[in-house]
């Protein structure tokens, strides 16, 4: 029971992720009524959970290299601080990243407990905040040029194109949901890996390790967020924030999914290592900011530099700095309370 209480902050983080980030996957599709919310939610839930359980390990261990939280109470505080920071920043209308918030919380824990922060790891992580969206923009621009050439040149009937686009949105959405689960489960359950040691269990014909069970709980929390709250956000995204055509939305979702998978795939990382090539760090990447990068990439192809929303970019830049700092500060304060008021071990 006490374990569940301490896991609650992570589960809340998962719910929040599902409520907000699923909209980046199916927002345009649902908002334009290409795909019904029920279909979008169903596909999101299934593939987020699959991604979390099957592919969540890479990014989680990447985050663990920054700071290994070994007590449940400490992990609870980290997750709570990160979630609170995300909520707080969202109220200010800033496009905040849960990944950056968790990183700040881990640094706060490091400072409080006296654990040294590996600057090399931190630099790698901070680097992904910059080149994650840039990579998404490049992928989106290339994909958009290819898709545009195909759509404009081919003699596909408008109604058939509509059918293919719906199918494409569903496939891209499934891939996007899997990538979100695989990459961002680290934000939800990553801090609990060291603190919660569950024995391996058999579920029907599948054996899940303790880590995978944690990811399953986190994935279910994300799925609950999708079902209970994401529709409202999807309608906003579909009609307001990103006014994308269905074809452009397909490109954005695909490009974002590719970036998230790149930063969470252990297979790809091993392959690059074996080939003597520099591997990408396996780190949770902000899906929202990757989305922004992808939309900007399409905008650059369509209309050049004048389409860049510098105001939005500056807001994101401010978020890179303020989110980790706020999260670290809040973590430090809450750890003090947890250790000295509630008398719980945090390290």
């Amino acid at each position, binding site marked *: 029971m006490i374990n569940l209480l301490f896991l609650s902050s992570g589960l809340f983080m998962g719910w929040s992720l599902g409520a907000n980030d699923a909209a980046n996957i199916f927002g345009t599709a649902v908002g*334009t*009524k*290409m*795909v*019904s919310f*029920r*279909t979008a939610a169903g596909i999101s839930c299934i593939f987020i959970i699959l991604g979390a359980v099957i592919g969540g390990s890479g990014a989680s261990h990447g985050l663990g290299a920054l700071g290994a939280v070994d007590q449940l109470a400490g992990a609870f505080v980290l997750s709570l601080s990160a979630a609170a920071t995300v909520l707080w920043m969202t109220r200010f209308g800033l496009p905040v990243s849960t990944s950056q918030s968790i990183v700040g919380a881990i640094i706060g824990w490091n400072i409080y407990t006296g654990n040294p922060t590996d600057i090399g790891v931190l630099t790698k992580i901070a680097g992904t905040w910059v080149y994650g969206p840039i990579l998404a923009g490049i992928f989106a621009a290339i994909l958009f040029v290819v*898709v*545009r050439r195909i*759509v*404009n*040149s081919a*003699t*596909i*009937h*408008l*109604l*058939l194109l*509509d*059918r293919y686009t*719906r*199918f494409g949105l*569903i496939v891209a959405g499934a891939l996007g949901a899997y990538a979100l689960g695989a990459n961002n489960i680290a934000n939800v359950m990553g801090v609990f890996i060291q603190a919660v040691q569950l024995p391996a269990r058999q579920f029907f014909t599948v054996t899940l390790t303790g880590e995978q069970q944690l990811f399953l709980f986190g994935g279910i929390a994300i799925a609950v967020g999708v079902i209970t709250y994401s529709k409202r956000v999807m309608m906003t995204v579909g009609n307001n924030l990103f006014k994308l*055509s*269905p*074809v*452009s939305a397909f490109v954005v979702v695909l490009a974002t999914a590719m970036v998230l998978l790149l930063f969470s795939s252990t297979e790809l990382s091993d392959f690059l290592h074996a080939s003597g090539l520099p591997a990408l760090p396996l780190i949770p990447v902000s899906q929202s900011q990757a989305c922004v990068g992808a939309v900007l990439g399409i905008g650059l192809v369509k209309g050049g530099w004048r389409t860049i929303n510098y105001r939005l970019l500056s807001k994101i830049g401010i978020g890179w700095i303020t989110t980790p700092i706020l999260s670290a500060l809040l973590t430090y304060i809450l750890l003090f309370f947890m250790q000295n008021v509630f008398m719980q071990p945090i390290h």
Partner: protein
Amino acid sequence: MKGKGMQVFTNRSKDLMETIERYLEQITAASLHYDEAMKDYLEGRDTSFDERIAKVTEIERKGDEDLKDIKYKLYAFMLIPDTRGDVYMLMDDLDDILDYIKRLLLELSMERPQFPPCIQEQLLRMSEYSAKAVESLMLGVRALFNQTKAVEEHVYRVAFYEREVDTLEEEIVRHVFSTDDVAQLAQRMQIRNFCFRIASLSDISEDIAKNLLVYAVKRMV
């Protein structure tokens, strides 16, 4: 609604494609009947002329049903959300052509204007070019659905035939008001009126073609 969320796996798109194709065929058929009806009228084949009117009336009725069906399916099946409004307006505008052809032939049938032999050849060419303007428009509409880059070429043809019709209209009216073959002012005015109405068919086609060009640009990714 059953299967609402999984339209990709149903034949609703194909169903609407067939309905639209049927509707476009009605309009093409009506313009062909119109051209033949004008020949029948000018050459005095009254029985054949009346049969053509009956056919056009039937085509117009079927066209109205197909249009209603198209409008319903576009929104009920939530197809092509980003271009649905344009397709809706286009189909609605095309109905004007059907209505106009039917009305024009009925007015010919009711008023029975007498066209002197000296202008009959030009009248035939005028109605032929009006029919060609409609035909080019229909090719442009099909290109909007299948091959957007070809729309501009068909729109150009519509504009060409419309200009030719306008030139013929002016020639006929000038001749009617200067020749002794048409003595009565009332008859001259009636002929002028019908020339204007025949020419209006190509004007309607050109107006729709201009919108078609905009829809084609919007359709490009």
